[in-house]
């Protein structure tokens, strides 16, 4: 292996590096820490080598660097056939490849890999905004290829070449759109499962420890969208979207109870009509699906657990749609088994003694559970409790500390404390996590991650083991506007540097497009394609039909993209030239005569006069008029002259028709 000097020009190198950086950039956030410095060093060295015409480094050194990078990746991400691992390797190797990009061949390889790198970004998210990334990266990469193939000028940003690349891409867009719709999709993956390469994202999880919800408050990305039938949307304070229900408390962390049964469908709906709605759930990486309290029945492909959680057997790693019916019940009647009752009354015995003491007092003084609940709520309301996103950290006896000392917190603190307080007072209670509220943008209700919420559910026992669940939201006692008008209203403090109302508003209105995007693009699949085919009148999805259809589409798109290119490349003639060509066409059947029209009208008409002596005078007249119209200084009435020429042309045509071909 010999060491070679760069065969690439500086401009070419610049575009290669530009393409690589742009392709890699949107993934930097999830790559290991050392990636960005490494990229800077690699790019810096490569440019330095180019400027000083250094030869390519020894292959041995490059191998060592590559192995070192591999080790670093394994160290920071672990080994295995995971999405993270493979994508990180691809990206790192693409960047490192710059070190040995000295020949045209390597340059082409790197640039084309950029297409692949760009694609890997979509394995993580298919957000609408990434369209700009798609187009931008495709453009820069394509232009890098163009510059590698041919440099029109030495300018780094040669506008004519840039325009050519942009034009090619623009012409490719309609083709891409058509193909997107009709290219046959796979119903199920041939290899692997979408979970491996799903777009994992954080949402509400099935445990709740101090501060776990706060991350969600910072996140304005959509959690799900709910489209209500007939646009009948319940009032904001009724919008409790139920997520994981937490039973167990170990002193700091809440967790779920495992169930082995499912809940039955609600049979009797008495006075209230159920709300019907469809939910478009963003991927969460969890099994939970959300519904308004209380869902009537489980949607297809999900279980309804006894605590009314919707549970999907597979993790939700892609956009998911489901339809639900909910009854906004105040009381949800359900029997409670003895073991469940014990679980719901459990609390760490030797912690939070002060609270235990208080609750035992309350229990003795109260007639019934409702009184205790009301007293607790009043207490939250009247004591000096504040709603805050940045409460002081708690440890040890967290409930005691919260209730008697800090008195600052958000839903998580209130729900957690309240539930434990109820248990201490002998009332079965549990924490429900989920979302509360949503933004109605006219066509659907947008629920964002920042709408995450936690509340309590207490069980009011009645005779013969029957009782009902009652939802209690202690946060509403502290910050009623949270529940009335949504989470945003109570945010006085800025969550981050660019947290302004108008940005949030803009983002919310953008969601409308995102919704469409999800409907039409992100969630396009076999079934939607089939529906589309049916509209087109093709309801057989057999191979032959599809092949025919593909061929047809190829032809149509081929012609579609051919036309504009041909249109640009065609020769253009002005009106006078066209008339001249019309004249020439009169004798097209005599190639020898016809050919002479290239040599100008005077030669051509002289030749015509030899062939058609009878037309001599009208040809002369045509010539004089034509020459004057086209070449003289006088700007005469153009339209009139054209008409006159047309008439003369007709006369000539008649004469020529009469005279048989010689």
């Amino acid at each position: 292996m010999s060491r070679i000097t760069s065969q690439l020009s500086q401009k070419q190198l610049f575009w290669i590096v530009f393409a690589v950086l742009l392709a890699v950039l949107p993934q930097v956030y999830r790559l290991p820490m050392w990636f960005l410095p490494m990229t800077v060093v690699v790019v810096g060295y490569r440019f330095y080598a180019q400027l000083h015409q250094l030869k390519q480094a020894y292959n041995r050194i490059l191998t060592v660097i590559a192995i070192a990078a591999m080790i670093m990746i394994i160290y920071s991400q672990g080994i295995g056939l995971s999405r993270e691992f493979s994508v990180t390797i691809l990206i790192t190797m693409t960047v490192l490849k710059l070190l040995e990009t000295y020949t045209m061949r390597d340059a082409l390889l790197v640039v084309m890999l950029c297409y692949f790198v760009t694609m890997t970004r979509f394995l993580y998210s298919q957000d609408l905004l990434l369209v700009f990334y798609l187009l931008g990266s495709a453009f820069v990469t394509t232009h890098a290829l163009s510059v590698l193939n041919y440099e029109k000028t030495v300018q780094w940003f040669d506008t004519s070449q840039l325009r050519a690349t942009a034009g090619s891409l623009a012409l490719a867009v309609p083709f891409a759109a058509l193909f997107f719709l009709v290219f046959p999709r796979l119903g199920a993956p041939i290899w692997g499962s979408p979970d491996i390469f799903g777009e994992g994202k954080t949402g509400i999880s099935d445990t709740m420890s101090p501060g776990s919800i706060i991350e969600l408050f910072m996140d304005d990305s959509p959690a799900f969208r709910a489209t209500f039938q007939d646009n009948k949307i319940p009032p904001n304070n009724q919008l409790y979207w139920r997520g994981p229900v937490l039973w167990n408390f170990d002193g700091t962390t809440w967790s779920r109870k495992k169930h082995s049964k499912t809940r039955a469908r609600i049979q009797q709906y008495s006075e209230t009509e159920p709300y019907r709605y469809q939910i478009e759930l963003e991927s969460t990486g969890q099994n939970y699906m959300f519904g308004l309290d209380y869902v009537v029945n489980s949607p297809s492909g999900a279980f309804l657990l006894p605590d009314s959680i919707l549970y999907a057997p597979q993790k939700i790693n892609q956009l998911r749609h489901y339809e639900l019916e909910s009854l906004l019940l105040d009381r949800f009647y359900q029997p409670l088994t003895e073991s469940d009752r014990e679980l719901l009354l459990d609390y760490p015995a030797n912690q939070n003694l002060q609270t235990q003491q208080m609750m035992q007092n309350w229990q003795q003084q109260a007639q019934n559970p409702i009184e205790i609940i009301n007293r607790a709520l009043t207490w939250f309301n009247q004591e000096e409790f504040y709603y805050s996103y940045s409460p002081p950290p708690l440890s040890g006896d967290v409930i005691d500390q919260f209730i008697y000392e800090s008195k600052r917190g958000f839903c998580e603190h209130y729900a957690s404390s309240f539930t434990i307080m109820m248990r201490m007072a002998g009332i079965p209670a549990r924490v429900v996590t989920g979302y509360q509220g949503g933004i109605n943008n006219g066509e659907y209700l947008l629920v964002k991650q920042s709408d995450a919420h936690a509340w309590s559910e207490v069980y009011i026992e009645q005779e013969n083991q029957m009782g009902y669940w009652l939802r209690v939201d202690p946060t509403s006692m502290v910050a009623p506007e949270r529940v009335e008008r949504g989470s945003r209203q109570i945010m006085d403090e800025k969550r981050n540097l660019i947290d302004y109302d108008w940005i949030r508003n803009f983002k919310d209105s953008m969601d409308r497009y995102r919704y469409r995007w999800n409907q039409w693009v992100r969630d396009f699949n076999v079934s939607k394609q089939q529906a589309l085919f049916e509209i087109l009148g093709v309801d057989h999805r057999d191979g032959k039909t599809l092949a025919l259809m593909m061929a047809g589409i190829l032809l149509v798109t081929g012609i579609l993209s051919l036309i504009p290119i041909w249109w640009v490349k065609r020769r253009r003639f002005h009106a006078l030239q066209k008339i001249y060509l019309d004249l020439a066409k009169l004798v097209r059947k005599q190639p020898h005569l016809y050919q002479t029209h290239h040599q100008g009208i005077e030669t051509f008409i002289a030749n015509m006069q030899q062939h058609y002596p009878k037309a001599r005078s009208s040809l002369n007249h045509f010539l004089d008029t034509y020459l004057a119209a086209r070449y003289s200084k006088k700007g005469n009435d153009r339209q009139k002259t054209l008409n006159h020429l047309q008439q003369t042309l007709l006369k000539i045509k008649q004469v020529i028709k009469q005279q048989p071909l010689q």
Partner: protein
Amino acid sequence: MKTQRHSLYMRWLLKKINQFFNRRGTESLPVTFDWRRIYVLPSKPGLFFATIWFLMMMAGLNFNNNMSLMLVFLLFGLAQVLLYRTFFNLRNLRLEQVTAQPAFLGEDINLKITVGSNDQKWQIFAVLDNTETVSNIPDQTAQLTLPCPSIHRGWQAIPRLKFFTRYPIGLFTVWAYCIPDAKALVYPKPEIPCPDYPHHGGADGQQTIPIKGDELSSIRDYRQGDPIRDIAWKKSAQSDQTWVKEFNQVRGKNLLFDYTQMDHGSLEFKLSRMTAWVLHAEHQQAEYQLVLPGFDSGMSSGQAHQHRCLQALALYQPGNQS
């Protein structure tokens, strides 16, 4: 040679393909390359692009990742558009003229190729065997220069020319062939070093061995028989070799080179030697006369005369004495 390793069938196939490409035979110029004679195939980078594209498509389809598929289809559309662009970049290219300067056998013939077009064309390559040259046609016409190996003395037909382009991105190669109706004159290869002039006399029958002039013209290697007084002592002392000074010949010598009076050597050897004489005599600005069976140049000098003599030597066939 690679072709020798091909099987019989492959060779037959290649022959058939070439017959197809050459089906138009030699053509008189100008020739316009319309769509009927333009061929298109993906280039090597194009094949690599296709491979990556295929992998991307499989991944996108497998996981029904719609944005990936969007990119994939965008690239497919792009490839299609580029195919057209590349095709239109070559379409209606006019091969207007191919001319060749006379060359000596063994040297390359310089082909001057004039191409034209009504629209702008970029990165048009002209290829002959293994050499290629590139040009743009920003406005009507452009010229390309290609070296073509000389094979034999006399008129040599210009071989098949290939014109291709990969503009704008290089994913496709679009090409066309043409065998232009043009030929190049190849003079015999001059004998090097130039032998002494013949002894068979000049026009006036006088001694034709060049008389040394006063002007030093060049320095060359020592050859047996060079007079001692011509040795360049200074230079010889500085190197291992012995150098000899050559002096310009006095103008006005009359030299006669007669083919029939040369008695030994093959035909080509004689022509080669005579070519060297003609060149040398012209270089020395002497007047000379070339006599071949059926050709007599007359006593003269100058570029035109030299060309006439060399052409006669190039085209000389022993049987043809008319």
